[in-house]
C-alpha cells in the first residue's frame, strides 16, 4: 500500500524575528514566515487568554485588537501585523483595576464557561472605546462574529450596556487586590438592637 497523499508540514524555512507591541510591552519572537498570529500569541508570546475555538473565523474566541481594531487572530498572518500594537484580553485591565467591560461581564452573567469571553471582551471594549453609548443594534452588530454557546447572548448585551454606563460615568473597575472581608470584624461598642428579636 502506498503512503497516503499528504502535503508535507516539514521542513519549513528557518524562523525569523517577529516584533510587535503586545499589551504595551515590546516582544521579539522567532516565527515562521507563514505563522498565524494566534499561534504566535499563544505559543510564543504566552498570552494564553487568546483562545482557539474553531480556528477558521467562525467563533471569534481568538479576537484581539490590532491598533485598537478587532481582528480574528486565527486568520491573520503574524508578519502582516509586524510592529503593530496588539491588545489581548490580558491587556484590558488597568493594572489591578478591571476594565469596566471585564467587571460587567463578571457581574452581569456575561461569562458562563468563559471560553468565548476574551473574544467578546476585546470586541466590546473596542466598541465602547468608539461609542460609549451604543444602541442595542450596534452592540449586536459588533458581537455578531462572536459565538457564545452558554449565555444566549442576552446577558452579554446587558453586560456591554452596563459597561458603557460605567464608562460614561467615568467609573473604573474594581481593584482586584483590595482587601475583602475581615474574619474578625470589630464592631461599634454598642450595636443597635434589631427591632424585636431576630429569632
Amino acid at each position, binding site marked *: 500500500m502506498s503512503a497516503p497523499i499528504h502535503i508535507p508540514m516539514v521542513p519549513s524555512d528557518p524562523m525569523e524575528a517577529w516584533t510587535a507591541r503586545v499589551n504595551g510591552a515590546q516582544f521579539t519572537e522567532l516565527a515562521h514566515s507563514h505563522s498565524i498570529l494566534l499561534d504566535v500569541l499563544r505559543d510564543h508570546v504566552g498570552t494564553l*487568554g487568546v483562545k482557539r475555538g474553531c480556528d477558521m473565523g467562525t467563533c471569534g474566541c481568538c479576537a484581539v485588537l490590532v491598533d485598537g481594531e478587532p481582528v480574528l487572530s486565527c486568520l491573520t498572518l503574524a508578519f502582516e501585523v509586524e510592529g503593530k500594537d496588539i491588545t489581548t484580553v490580558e491587556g484590558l485591565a488597568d493594572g489591578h483595576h478591571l476594565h469596566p467591560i471585564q467587571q460587567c461581564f*463578571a457581574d452581569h452573567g456575561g461569562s458562563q464557561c468563559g471560553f468565548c469571553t476574551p473574544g467578546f471582551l476585546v470586541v466590546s471594549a473596542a466598541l465602547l472605546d468608539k461609542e460609549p453609548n451604543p444602541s442595542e443594534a450596534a452592540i449586536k452588530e459588533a458581537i455578531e462574529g462572536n459565538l457564545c454557546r452558554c*449565555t444566549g447572548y442576552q446577558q452579554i448585551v446587558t453586560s456591554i450596556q452596563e459597561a458603557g454606563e460605567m464608562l460614561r460615568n467615568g467609573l473604573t473597575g474594581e481593584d482586584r487586590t483590595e482587601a475583602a472581608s475581615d474574619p474578625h470584624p470589630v464592631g461599634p461598642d454598642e450595636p443597635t438592637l434589631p427591632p424585636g428579636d431576630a429569632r
Partner: protein
Amino acid sequence: MSKGYRQAPSGSSDKKRKDGKRIAGKQDFGVPGSGGSNPYSELQDIERIPNSQGGQLEQPRGPHVHDPHITGQTIGKATPLVDSRWKVTGQAEYGDDIRLPNELVGRILRSPHHYARIVSIDTSAAEALPGVRAVSTGMDSVNRFGVLPVTKDEHAMAQDKVRHVGDLVACVAAESEEIAIEALSYIHVDYEVMESIHDMEDGLLDSENPIHDRGKYHIGESNVQKRVFQQFGHTDAMHDAPFQSKSDWTFAGLHHGFTEPHAVVAHWDPNGRLQLYTPQQVPHYVHRALSSVLDVPMHQINVIRTFVGGGFGGKSDPFPHEMCAAILAKKSGRPVRINFDREEVYWINRGRHPSRIQMEVYADEKGRIAGIETDALIDGGAFASFGHVTTYYNGVLHTSPYEIGGFHYTGARVWTNKPASGAMRGHGAVNSRCAVEVAIDDVCEQMGVDPMTFRLANLLPPHCRTITGFRITSTGMRECLDEVRKQSGWDDKFRKMPLGRGIGVGCGFFISGSGLPIHWDPENFPHATVHLQCDMDGGVTVHTGAADIGQGSDTAVAQAVSEVLALPLDMIRIRSRESDTAPVDLGSYSSRVTFMNCNAAIRAAIELREKVLNAAWEIIGYHPDSLVLGDRRIYYKRDPAIGVSWLQAVHKAQADTGSLIASGAYRTPPMGGVHKGAAAGLAPAYSFSAYVAEVEVDPETGFVRVIKAWAAHDCGKALNPLAVEGQIIGSCHMGMGQVLSEEMRYGRTGHLLNPDLLDYKIMSVHEMPEVVPIIVESNDPEGPFGAKEAGEGPLLPILPAVVNAIYDAIGVRVNELPVSPDRLYSTIEKQCRKMGIKDPLDLPNPSFEPSALQADLENRAKEHAHRDLQRDLLKDRSSYVNGVLFGFDPDRPLPEQSEGWRESVTPTPEDLADPKKRAARAWSHVERRKRRDDA
C-alpha cells in the same frame, strides 16, 4: 446580661506588658491581618430570614427543612460566579492552556473509512522521523472502557477494526505539532473495508459483521445495542379514545457546540504518578477509566480538571484521547498535550441521538389524556456511551407532568458507523418531549380546547407518583403555565394573530440528579461528599469533586457554605479541581450537582457551624440554641452586643486539635418501583417548565424567526437568580438552535458534511430573540434550601413551543427537526398543493372555536389548582398516584382495581404486531444467551 462578655472594640489589652516584652504563650493574635473593607459586621437581615424562623421572608409554599440554616448571606441574591474574575482577565486555564515545561505535542491518526478491519499497522517510518518521541497504536492498550460499567466498548485506539470515519487508530507525540502531523502520514495502515451501515433502520437487521460483539448478551446478530419495553395502564383501551394524534418524527443528530475543543495534558511525575489535566464534566469516571485502561491503581493517578469551555454533556465520557495522551507521555517520558481541531470534536461527538419517534397521544371525551404510545428508534453511532440510559429516557421522561391513562413505550438504540451519540443537555428527553407536546396541541385542536387550558386540567399534583412509579415531590408546573400565559398575553394572541404570526406553548419535565449512582450501590456510598476545612485565617476551604463546567457549581457550593456559616463569599474557597484533594464526586451530568453537592455542602457546613458555636458557647457562656450567626460574628439572640467574632470562635474551636474540619454527604431517599428499568429516570426531585414562544413565519421562504419567548422554569429555589436566568436563556438558545437550524448532516456517502462551526448552524446574536426568564420557586422539600436543577430542563419546552407557534402562524404541522427554511418551505408547498392554493400567502389562518369541553376543562383546572395548593401546603396528606383522575383509589394497587391495567416490561407478540413500528422490530431478535448458542 449578667454572663458573657461584651465584645471589645479591640483585643484585650490587659494581657499586654507595658515594657514592650512579650509573655510566652500570651501573644495576642486576635486580629491577624485585620484591615477588611468593612470593619463592622452586620446582624442578620431580618428581611432575608424566612417567616418560619421569625423573619420577614415570605414563603408561599410553607417552611423548608433548611430554613433554620438561612442566615441571609447569599442565597437568593444575584451572585457573580466565584471564578468569573479568572475568566474575564484571561487567566482561566482551559485544557490547551496547560503548558508544562518540556512538553510534547500529540496528534491522533484517524480512520478514513466508515468500517474496516485493520490488517496491519507499520509505524516504523513515523518513529524514525526526526522530532518524533513516541508512537502508539491499539496494541499498546487492550483494556476496554466506557462511561457506563454495563457497556464498556471503547479502547484507547482501534484494536481490530475501525468503526467510523475519525475513529482513533494511532497517535504520535513529537517536538512540534507540525512534526506530529507529518509523522501521522508516515504511519502505514492496511485496511480491509467492510460494508458499513448508516441508516438507523438498517441497524435493526441482522448483519454479518455487527459493529460490536456483546458475546452472550448480543441481541440476535443485529446492531441493536439496547432495547426497552414498558407498558403501564390501560394501554389497550386508549386506542379507542375519540381524539387521536399520530405522528412520525425525524430528529437530526446534534452536537453540543461548546466553544472549547477537547484538549488534554498528561504527565507522569517523577514519582511515577500520572497527572492528567483535562476539561471534564466527569473527572472521576476518567480516573476510573485511566486506571483500568493503563493498569495503574487509582491512587497513582491524579486527575486535574481544568476550566471547562462548555460541556453540555459533550465532555461527560472518559475519552480515548485522554488515554492516548497518558500512553504517549509514558512512552516518551515527557508531558504530552493533545488539542483537538474543531473537526475532531465532531468525530468524538456524543451529541444528541438522531432519532425517529412515532408518537401517539390519545385523549378521551372528558379531555383527559387516555394514553401515550411511543416508539423511539435512536441512532447511537459507533459506541455505547450513555446510550443505555438514553434509550430509557426517550420514553420514561414523558410520564409526567400530565396524568395519563396509559403508557406504552418501545425504544431501541442501534449502532451505526457514525461518530457516537451520547448525552446532551436534556439527555434523552428533548426529542420525545417535543413530539408529546406537539401531539397534545394536535388533540386540543381536534377537541376545540385551548391547549393552555388542556394542560392546566391534566397536571399531576405535588407529592404523587407517576404511572411508572416516579416519586414527584414539588412541582411548579401550574404556576409556570399561569405565568407564561399571563405574561405573554396568550389569551389575546392564540389563534388571533394574522397569517405568519403565531404563538405556541410547550412544557418540560426533567430529572434533578440521577437517583442511582452509576458506579456503586447507593446503600453503601453516598452520591456526593463535601469536606470543609477551616484554618487559623478563618476562611473556609471547600473540597468537592463537583466539576464546574461554567454552569457555576463552584459558586453554588460556595453559596451553600457561605449561607450556613454566615460568611461573606470571599471567605469561602473552593478546591474542586484535583482528584488528589477532592472527595469522590460523580461529575456534572443529569443535573445533579446543585441538588446533591449543595445538600452535602449544607450538611458539612452544619457540622462545622456546630463546632464553632460550641466554641462560642465556651467563650460567651450562652448555649448554641440561643446564639445567632450574623455576618462574621456570633451573638446572643436577645442582646446582639454580646458576642464573639467568627475568628475568635474559630480559634477557640481549634484550640485542642489545631484543626477545624467537617464533612457532609448526600444520598437519595429510597424511591421508585421494582420493575426492570425502574431506576431509569428516578430522581430525588424533578424540574418543570413551561414556555411560550411567539414566532414570525415567512410563508414564501419558510424562514421562522422567534420574536420573543417567555420562559418559566421551576427550579425549586433560585440559589443564584443570575445564574438561573443565564441557564434559562442559554437553554433557549440551544433549544432554538435544535428546532430551527442545528443538525449534523450526513451525505449520501455517509460522511458528516458539516464538522465545523460554519456549517453547523449555531444561532448568532441576530437570530436570538428576547427571552423573558421567569423563575418559579416550588420550594422542593429535599432540595438544598428548596432548590432543584435549572441547567437542562429549561431546554425542553422551547422546541414544542416553537413548533406549535409555527402551526398557529401558518396552519402547518411539521414533524422533522430542525425546521430549516427548506424543510418548512417544502411542507408549505405540500399543504398548498393539498389545498389547491397557488400562493402560500393565501394559506388559511388557523382559528379557534372553543367546544363545550373548554368550559369543563377550565373548571377542572380551577379545582386542580385548589387541590395542588392544599397538597403543597401539606393540608392534604392523602396519597396520590397517576390514575386518580381516572377514578382509581390511590391506596390500593391499580391492577387490582381494573382488569385492563397492565404493568409489564416484556412485550407480547401482540404488542409488537404493528409492522410500521420501528423500535418494536428490535424485539424480534433473541438474545444469544436465551438462544443458548453463545460459544
